[in-house]
């Protein structure tokens, strides 16, 4: 086991274990905390893959923004949050459990059976990804860049209109 493998296994265990914790815990709030741990684990995987920028962005956006948003939403629905005896799952959960395990096994089989066209050993990699990303946003990917701003504007306006109390 190299150091990289050790770190990978740690991150993977944290990620998957927290994910299981998230779907099995009864309290939504605690589930959200597990979800945050998943996000952290995924960020570690990103960093391990050499995508440091994305790892930081993952923490920034997912933990700092989305998770906090979800936690706020949980706080704002106290009658649900406060009911300790509310069942976790809906009626179809056994069926779904079977389906999810089937999906997992099929996907894993698919991953193992596919012959991935791996890049050449020692192919040049991107250094200073943020800079490249900035250049990319101003050239090839200008449309996604601007569309993203429009998307966020739409989400902002839509969410404000929906969420506000009149």
């Amino acid at each position, binding site marked *: 086991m190299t150091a990289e493998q050790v770190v990978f296994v740690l991150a993977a265990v944290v990620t998957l274990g927290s994910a299981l914790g998230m779907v099995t815990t009864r309290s939504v709030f605690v589930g959200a905390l597990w979800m945050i741990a998943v996000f952290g684990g995924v960020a570690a995987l990103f960093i391990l893959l050499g995508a440091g920028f994305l790892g930081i962005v993952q923490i920034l956006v997912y933990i700092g923004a989305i998770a906090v948003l979800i936690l706020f939403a949980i706080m704002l629905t106290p009658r649900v949050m406060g009911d300790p005896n509310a069942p976790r799952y809906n009626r179809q959960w056994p069926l*779904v459990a079977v389906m999810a395990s089937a*999906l997992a096994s*099929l996907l894993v*089989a698919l991953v193992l059976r596919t012959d991935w066209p791996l890049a050449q050993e020692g192919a040049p990699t991107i250094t200073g990804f943020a800079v490249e990303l900035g250049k990319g946003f101003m050239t090839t990917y200008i449309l996604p860049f601007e569309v993203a701003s429009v998307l966020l504007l739409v989400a902002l306006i839509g969410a404000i209109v929906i969420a506000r109390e009149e």
Partner: protein
Amino acid sequence: METLLSLTPLVPLFPLLAFLAIVLVLNPNKRLSAAVAIGAVGLSWLLGWAIFFSSIGAGLGEQPFVVELPWMPTGRRLFVMSVMLDPLGAIMLFMVPFVALLIFIYSVGYHNLGQPNVEPRFSRFFAYISLFAAGMLALVVSGNMLLFFIAWEIMGLCSYLLIGFWFYKPSAANAAKKAFLTTRVGDVLLFVGLVLLYSFTGSLNLYEVLSPENIEFMKESSISVAGLFTLPALPTIALLIFGGAVGKSAQFPLHVWLPDAMEGPTPVSAMIHAATMVAAGVFLVARMLPLFEPIEGSWWLGVVALIGAFTAVFAASIAVAQNDIKRVLAYSTISQLGYMIAALGIGGFIAGVFHMLTHAFFKALLFLGSGSVIHGMEHGVHHVEEHGHGEGHGHVDPQDMWNMGNLRRHMPTTFWTYVVGAFALAGVPLVTAGFWSKDEILAEAFEKWTHKGVVSIPFVVWLLLTVGAALTAFYMGRQLGLVFGGRERTEAARHAHESPRSMTVPLMILALFAIGFGWVNIPKNVPLVGNGWLYTFLAETHINVLHEPYEKVPFVFSVAAFSSILALGGLALGWWLYRDVTGDATVSPFERDPVARAFARIPLVGRPLWLLLENKYYVDEIYGVLVVRPVLALSAFLNSFDDRWIIDPLVDGVGKAARGLSAVGRWIDTYIVDGIVNYIGYILDELARGLRLIQTGRLPNYLAILVAGVLALVGLMLR
């Protein structure tokens, strides 16, 4: 000149900008909105004509003009939007913006701008119709399937918005939904076809996709459907794409939306029926013709031909028995589209395109003319209701032809232009555009069957189309007689008066083209006037696309003479029979309509046969039973559906089935045909009940079904 061609991408841009400007900024000001919309389409028209005229002799058939715009990079591939101009596109640029411009101008008068009863959502109308024009123009100049499909869908959306423009009328709202959903069936087929085409050829570029190598490759390939069975690639793709055309160009069996589409404002009907929407389907088939191997004549090309020819006669026979002035025209449109499709189906590329162009002019003319008639009649109705000298008739339908009569005296301009349009549609020989284009199709079919013998598709096509030609002439004569001939049958007709200038001037211009445009392709062997110009112009495309010179069809005198006799005879008969009929819309058809009376004389089958025609072969009702009712019943059923998933539907189903059976017994006694159809529908209805169980309205259930689909997909990938 090169620079002029390079302006091609701008043609659809002007109306698009007009749309944005009106929607975002201008809409409070009606007059300005209309001015901007008309100005924009006017610019498109000027540019379109400039491009068209400069493209003559520019060798575009050999080397189409192409502009590529990178659109979306996805992984290693870059999707490109491309604009292409070849002779087929250029000739469309001659027709589309011009007709659109006239319709725009006409709309100003139609919506009573400057009068107290002006349409309240006037600006919105111009916004929609500008977008519609932009969609059609983009479609015409598109050089790849991506832009083509986007434009195609924009038109689908616009037709929905425009047909349902008066959405507060339930009929209009329903018609809009119907048009959208019916064409959607075709659109899905088209989309699947395009995706398959892309997966086989790896390109979206029209010319690349249709290269002989690709055609050959697809001919040898087959498509495996989920590993269950295989389909030959080329016919499957070709027919899927043809499915799109069937939906858009209202061919049987997806024609049902088009007659209802007249619920929208009349300019919209003209736009849909003449210049844009329906032409798009024909244009699509013409563009994709190589897929059908027209030179060799494949079986799937035969399917195209037969559907076209059948639709032509089918719709024409319905038109004979209609009473609504626009409905007659709507079915005539379906019929004429059948001509075009049939022409393409027997390999008559130029004949089909030629008929599409001439038809655009005279059908726009007829629709706008009918709009003018209705406008005049509405005035009459209004007048009568206001001054109270109606004879207790109640409300008079201004669209029913039986309420009209003698309008030639009250609306002379409309009358004369309408006559021109009707003559062109009927194919009055030598003068009108319709004659030359229709004759081209018939001659093409005639040529083909004389080579192949009587037991061949071209013969069937020729036979059906000739019958259709006779019917066409007859119902147009009937319409002229009912609307313009004889005496006024209602008080309203007596008070009808001519429409404003902005409506009649476009009519006159269109009338000029309904006559003159036929002259651009008079076959060369006609003495004195023969030129075959369009043929020369389009033949380049033909060679480039089909890699085979276009087989020249000479003018066949006997065919022309025969169809001329039919046309004149039909017109005369129609006019003569219906000129002096009496009895308005309130009278039963078997008392007022000479043809219906003739039908009624045939024992037993006569009356039902006429009713069959009048009710459009009950296609709507059949669809209602087969498709619409199950869907509606679904929601009704769910209304009562609670947690008892099994027992409730079971009990319910048994009871319903028993009642259904007894109902069947009753029906057999009365309406045999109708009963069987209903019964089949009922069976399906009951079967659908099982499927309805999955419609619980609960998100997790739907998601679970979705994941099941994903599972199936992954499983397939693992195979």
